[in-house]
């Protein structure tokens, strides 16, 4: 066991933890997106869903888990990035990509990651710890997140920021999703192509799916 702990800090295992947490986050994004899409069904549907989630006693465990995943992913990301910078103390006078390997997405992982981090901090401050409106359906009092969202996204800058952040997220997962399989050790000539496509498809769905929400809210406000 002690040897396993020691190996948690090896380059390979660190990378694998990144990959596993990254994939779990990818899963979270899917469920978060589906949940958020209830907005399209109107205030009651959305708020009731959120209420059901928040009042479920398991939420604390889930949130703690999610927090742990985020912290692990972010912590390791920062550590890896610093180590990687240190591995080349004198930088090149000229460095040209071959054009056959790295992509824009893969080369910008730390930056898109950072953007997501900044996004997250404000996102959670605004929605989770932001103003509390209430609404009541069938006698049940609950938080009116719907209102909060619509209100928040009346600001076009907020919408723009969200769209930009979602583009960063899209870039991040477009490389990250497939890359995670490589890190864990899955690379098979038969499936590589499919995996890369899936990764891009996933990125597009996530980006468009999330980006559509603020825009929808913005448009809703006009009514």
């Amino acid at each position, binding site marked *: 066991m002690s040897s396993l702990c020691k190996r948690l800090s*090896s380059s390979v295992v660190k990378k694998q933890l990144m990959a596993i947490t990254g994939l779990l986050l990818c899963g979270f994004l899917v469920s978060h997106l589906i949940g958020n899409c209830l907005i399209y069904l109107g205030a009651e549907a959305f708020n009731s869903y959120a209420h059901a989630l928040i009042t479920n006693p398991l939420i604390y465990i889930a949130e703690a888990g999610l927090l742990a995943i985020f912290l692990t992913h972010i912590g390791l990301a920062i550590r890896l990035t610093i180590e*990687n910078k240190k591995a080349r103390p004198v930088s090149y*006078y*000229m460095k040209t990509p071959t054009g*056959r*390997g790295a992509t824009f997405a*893969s080369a910008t992982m730390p930056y898109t990651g950072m953007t997501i981090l900044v996004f997250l901090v404000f996102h959670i401050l605004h929605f989770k710890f932001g103003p509390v409106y209430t609404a009541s359906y069938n006698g049940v009092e609950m938080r009116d997140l719907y209102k909060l969202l619509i209100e928040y996204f009346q600001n076009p800058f907020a919408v723009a920021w969200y769209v930009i952040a979602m583009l960063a997220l899209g870039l991040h997962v477009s490389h990250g999703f497939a890359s995670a*399989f*490589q890190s864990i050790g899955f690379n098979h000539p038969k499936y590589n192509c499919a995996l890369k496509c899936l990764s891009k498809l996933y990125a597009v769905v996530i980006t468009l799916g999330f980006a559509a929400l603020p825009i929808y809210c913005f448009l809703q406000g006009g009514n």
Partner: protein
Amino acid sequence: MSHDNNLMTLNLKIWRQKNQDDKGQMVDYKLSGVSKDMSFLEMLDLLNEQLVNESKEPVAFDHDCREGICGMCSLMINGQAHGPRKNTTTCQLHMREYKDGDTIVIEPFRARALPVHKDLIIDRSAFDEIIEAGGFVNVATGNAQDANSILIPKLDSDLAMDAASCIGCAACVASCNNASAMLFVSAKISQLALLPQGKVEAEKRALSMVDKMDELGFGNCTNEAECEASCPKGINISNIARMNLEYLKAAVASKID
């Protein structure tokens, strides 16, 4: 002699550094009389001949076989390890890639684990240390059974050969944005993991070679595949995946400490 009538003049920007402690700097040279048939290193020979004739110290660079197999040559050429061509070492690069009047920037491979000895010569002993940590099969001379008593599917043997063709040049490290040595290390781990002869010690090998690599201060891989793209032997990053899996299995399941 065939095309010597269209000789080129080049502007070279070359990294000069006296020794490991020197800070070093880029120095400009103008070189004429370069023919398209020359190899890149022959172009540097020509520069050195010119420098010696001017009683200046020639540019030190590593080279030996000059046919792309020993892994001795290196160089970042205009920001690319071994220059622009796919599957090509610097010694196999020819000046027909360049035009009259071009500027060529020449730097050593750079990484913390590969310090510069002088000018363009680097210290790659870290690679030997990694192999020493486990890149072998423990079989003493005389211990071998008849070669044909080990049957190996041709496909595995071919894949092992693909990985084994690594020449240890360190272009993978040089071109990786993270100065990671994963491709080199994984090539050896893969070769031996694919063969029955290597399986016996596969767990120990994966653990000790990767641990050594980490200890030496190489960066971590972020799956960028620049290494594969600039590897003169086209070593595939699927080897890195194989190594990752081998390491994971060994770290979790093996009885080795």
